[in-house]
């Protein structure tokens, strides 16, 4: 599984980093920063889906 973050679309709702803090962090303005590169570890697949399913801006996509 790979995670993509569209930083143009992100408006800093912060849903991703509160639901999946192992995968996302906030920058100094509240916009999302991806913490993983490459494959998402198996143990974090559910967290990744949760983040993608709750982003109001559809800024997070998952490729499996």
């Amino acid at each position, binding site marked *: 599984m790979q995670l993509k973050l569209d930083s143009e679309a992100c408006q*800093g709702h912060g*849903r991703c980093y509160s639901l999946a803090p192992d995968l996302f962090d*906030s920058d100094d303005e509240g916009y999302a920063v991806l913490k993983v590169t490459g494959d998402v570890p198996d143990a974090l697949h559910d967290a990744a889906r949760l983040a993608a*399913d709750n*982003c109001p*801006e559809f800024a997070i996509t998952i490729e499996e």
Partner: protein
Amino acid sequence: MTDTTRPPVTDWATDFDHTRPEYAESAPEIWEQLRNECPVAHTDRFGGAWLPVRHEDVAAIARDTEHFSSEGVIVNDFRPVDLAPIGYAPPITSDPPFHQVARRLLLPAFAPKQIDRWEPVARATCQELLDELLADGADVVDAAAQYAQHIPVRVIADMLGVPREDGDKFRTFIHRILEVPGSGGPGEIEYEDTLDYYLDEAVKERRANPRPGSDDLITYLIEADLDGEPLTDDHITGTIGLLIIAGIDTTWSAIGSSLWHLAQRPDHRRQLVEDPDVMVFAVEELLRAYAPVTMARIVAEGVTDAEIGGCPVKERDWVLLPFPAANLDPEAFEDADQVILDRQRNRHLAFGVGIHRCIGSNLARMELRVGIEEWMKRIPDFELAADDPDAVRWSTGQVRGPRELPIRLLSTNEVA
């Protein structure tokens, strides 16, 4: 002009009026009826306004800043004239490209790590309020007027570095602007009693008595610069005014509605006590189900080709953005009319969508979570004091929440 001078509404599709008490009482039912019969309602009141209720249409308008301007965000009888792209309260009344400039100025102060610092203040505030609430052993209390209302007022006063007693004034200003839009015009009230006067004085006072090194927001704005230039006084007072107007009734409404809901649902109260991990989802679900804020736009000057869900609209028309209606749209949410505390897919729009996403969302979420947590610790069991859930008084206008919320306390705990 006040809401009481407008006639009652008989047809919500062609003559709606969101400032009427009957809208305050039954907005969710009105949205549902419109969704089924006429999802883009219109009224000739306010000089012409639209009310789309579908999630798809509300989100599309919020994202379309080219056709829909934020020059006016509170619908009333007077349209703003020539204020775009800055507006009277940047960034909420600003359009691109200026919007981003004003927004970036505020974002760092409201980013999650900065807001974390205020959580102990919010928690202590809630505990103080609960101590007062429970002090005289009453078995019925008003959860809106005695509790929810004070939480955001005290926290924002501390964040601005002004006395907490000023909170009473804030509530008067807000009431005038949000609940009776268009009231308080020249001649109706003394200048000394206006928000403008309060803000001018607050900034003057801080300039006269600077607080170097203080982390309060007024100092932050006085010291801030835009491209090397200090902010104008108008920009500073407009921004502080916005934080007061945008942050208080909204959060108060969210906490109040959540307690109104929990008062009616023993199963949800138990779920929160037994499984604290549900809280991160519950906060979002309560925000979805009881989103307090409806925004507005004005069809931009010179636009000839704008439409909402197929309905053509004309330049300078008002457009309401009822985020709470969008959040209840069954096309966008499974079991939209049910409150499911641990809902897993929840792209709700309580804080808007697109470039104007609520800057205070991290603060508001924190206050809502802490407000419920502290209440539940001291008052784990409670119910509505009136048998009729509609006996609660809901606010009128674009911010929806209970303003009187009598609650019977069924069990209380001593301070741990």
